[in-house]
């Protein structure tokens, strides 16, 4: 009864408190990259806190523009009052889906189903990457994909690599065979590579592992599923939770031992830190505190005096783009701090906002142009900087940002781990 009373009055305390923190200043809408380019999107304030009042009172607003929220979380980063605006929008989408009040075109449903499952695509794509890439590079394929399911023919789809594999030296079997008891947890580490590394950029994953091994860690990579962020942003909330439960089950034994979890993808990292602790499954209570962004972890090592700093000089000037989901983690820009430890490396922070791709948002036919418009400030800053020879390339942790920046500006864009690998003399070593 009490529960029902709460629902009727809309007094779910956590949600009400989150809502009451909003002082209606409108900073979120002023900074929202989508609102600035898409007039049909009322903006985070209207669709978040404003509409939340009604939603809490049981009035469901179902504007079909909810799917235009890219989940970049700029609104949450901008908010001076800590309101979880994006979360409100995502939950509204979930409610909308459950109520089935709105059905978008079938073919786009199919597309969103597919894009939400980068992992399934990845498994297919990495069976024979060269063939997949050859097919995906064909204009006719792309036109067909646009016509059939609404996948933009111009979008920078990532190519597939050989699947990322890591010889797990600490599988339960090996541990038994080794018979030396439980190894020092401080020297072991779990790596959550994420779909982009696993299916599209295995080499970068290997570089991450090598850097960690160079620092004396034994790296463990369980058979994780996708972290769930693409599922959430494509409206498949239940499946996202299922993935989280699966991954938590794999993580739990390591979490109990106090072993840190490293994510090199900033979106996977954010999910592990921020979404997983709210999933009802064992391990959820530890995963937030034990997950580190890869560079955040290296910085912790540096602070403790445990980072190997036997760097060779790498004379290069680079521009750094901070991915939106790194900003949302609230840890600053540890990659920049680490890169500046390497002699010769010069880093200029771009600070030109979201790249626009937002995972799979920019792959969609009706959103491709918006994504390019959102990223236009960033692209022009990159192009100007390259023309003026201020830097020779771009680094950013997020795989999506990498392909979008390369697509929009033409500049070579890679993960900053490559600088470290080079400074350590690990590049090309296997």
């Amino acid at each position, binding site marked *: 009864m009490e529960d029902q009373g709460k629902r009727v009055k809309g007094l779910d305390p956590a949600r009400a408190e989150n809502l009451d923190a909003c002082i209606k200043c409108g900073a979120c809408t002023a900074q929202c990259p989508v609102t600035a380019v898409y007039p049909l999107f009322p903006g985070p304030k209207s669709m978040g806190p404003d509409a939340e009042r009604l939603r809490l009172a049981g009035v469901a607003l179902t504007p079909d523009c909810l799917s235009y929220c890219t989940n970049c979380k700029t609104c949450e*980063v901008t908010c001076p009052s*800590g309101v979880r605006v994006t979360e409100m929008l995502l939950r509204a989408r979930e409610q909308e889906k459950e109520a089935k009040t709105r059905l978008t075109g079938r073919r786009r449903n199919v597309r969103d189903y597919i894009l939400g499952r980068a992992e399934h695509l990845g498994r297919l794509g990495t069976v024979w990457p060269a063939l997949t890439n050859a097919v995906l590079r064909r204009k006719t394929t792309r036109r067909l994909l646009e016509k059939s399911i609404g996948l933009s023919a111009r979008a920078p789809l990532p190519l597939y690599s050989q699947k990322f594999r890591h010889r797990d030296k600490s599988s339960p079997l090996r541990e038994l065979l080794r018979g030396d008891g439980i190894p020092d947890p401080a020297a072991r580490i779990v790596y959550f590579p994420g779909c982009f590394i696993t299916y599209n950029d295995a080499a970068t994953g290997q570089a991450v592992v090598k850097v960690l091994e160079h620092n004396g860690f034994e790296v463990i990579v369980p058979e994780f599923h996708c972290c769930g962020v693409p599922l959430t942003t494509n409206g498949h909330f239940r499946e996202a939770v299922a993935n989280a439960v699966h991954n938590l089950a794999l993580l739990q034994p390591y979490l109990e031992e106090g072993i840190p979890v490293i994510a090199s993808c900033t979106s996977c990292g954010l999910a592990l830190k921020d979404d997983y602790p709210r999933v009802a499954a064992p391990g959820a209570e530890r995963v937030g505190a034990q997950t580190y962004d890869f560079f955040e972890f290296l910085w912790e090592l540096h602070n403790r005096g445990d980072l190997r700093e036997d760097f060779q000089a790498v004379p290069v000037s680079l521009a750094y783009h901070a991915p939106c989901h790194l900003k949302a983690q609230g840890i600053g820009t540890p990659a920049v701090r680490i890169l500046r430890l390497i002699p010769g490396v010069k880093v200029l922070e771009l600070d030109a906002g979201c790249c626009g791709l937002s995972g799979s948002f920019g792959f969609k036919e009706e959103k491709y142009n918006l994504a390019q418009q959102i990223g236009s400030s960033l692209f022009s800053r990159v192009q100007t900087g390259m023309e003026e020879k201020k830097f020779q390339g771009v680094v950013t942790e997020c795989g999506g940002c990498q392909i979008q920046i390369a697509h929009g500006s033409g500049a070579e864009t890679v993960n900053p781990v490559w600088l470290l690998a080079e400074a350590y003399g690990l590049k090309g070593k296997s």
Partner: protein
Amino acid sequence: MMWDGIIIGGGLAGLVAGIRAQERGKQVLLISEGAGSLTFAAGVLDFGRMEELQAQENHPYALLGEQAVRDAFRYLIGLCPVYHGEWGRPQAVLTPLGMLRQADLVPFRLDASPLAGAREIILMAPEGLKDFFPEVVKTNLQKQFPGAAVRLQRLRVEEFTNWHRVGKPVPATVYAKFWCTRQGALTLQNLLQETALEVRSGLNPVMVIPGLSSAFCPGLAQTLDKAPWPVVEVTSFPPSPAGQGLYETLKEEFRALGGELLIGSGVGRVEIESQAVRRVIVKSRGKETAFAARAFVLATGGLFGRGITVSPTEVREAVFGLPLYVPAEWSGSAFLGEQPYARTGIAVDDRLRPRHPISRELLLTNVHVAGRMLAHWDPWLERCGGGVSLASGFLAGELL
């Protein structure tokens, strides 16, 4: 790692403190709960009446002294050369409603002085510009410049057709961003040429354009330089293109000097040992992140910046829980007159370190307070917000 300085707060005072400290070779981290309040400022800076304010006991100007405020004035022009101003000679700028107001440091082209000699004023009215009321502005211009004929010239750009179709107003920052693109500048150039055919130069025409800020956009500035008559811009309601421009410029400068910005997650708690702050703990996602520094700047703003929070039982400084000076009487009867609550804030010594408001005892030895958080001043009545924030921010940056 031990930072040389950590600045809490990303508004005018915090950013200037950060830039100054980086210039001095310090390693600085700036932590801000959200985007700083400059995104809401008009972008013009007030300094107020130095002599009067300096005479007030405890006023930040009395503490800082005239020379420090004058230095800060010049310092900002050095940082952002697009700002113009002469000490003690305020300029006129147009409010969003077309009234004249005074300001001391003004991005070029916001200076409204060309209007004084005009016999024709062409008021450009971009279609659907948010919070812009062309008829009101026209009427106000006509009243203030009776010697000029004010003509309203509506303009429409294809870019925003979709916005107009759904009846959604276009924010000034969105219009400004468009004018700032190559295509936008070209569109404006064509519009100016079309308009030129109808303008008689003998009437000393002046064009007023709202919803842009050419000072922060070199390409656009070039286009407007080529206009055959002076162009005067208009300050904007929030979010304002000039305020945004100043914010971006200062952030870029801070970063270029090697400073790090952590925007989006505020300080959750602090560790204090024998009257000195050792570490601030940021509410990162998933876990807390601790940052240690030798010295700290508190520039979190006042009531509106949420550096000070108010509940029915308590007025609280949000980060360190420092005791505040709170006037006995909160409000005054004249709505736009003296409102004592505006003077709420932290009392400080000459090194901007927090003191107890009554006992005057020094509270923290390695914290410097800057900007709106300082006690004993009123930015609205005294119109000295820019001056206090710049001068105290600059000094805090010197002291880090």
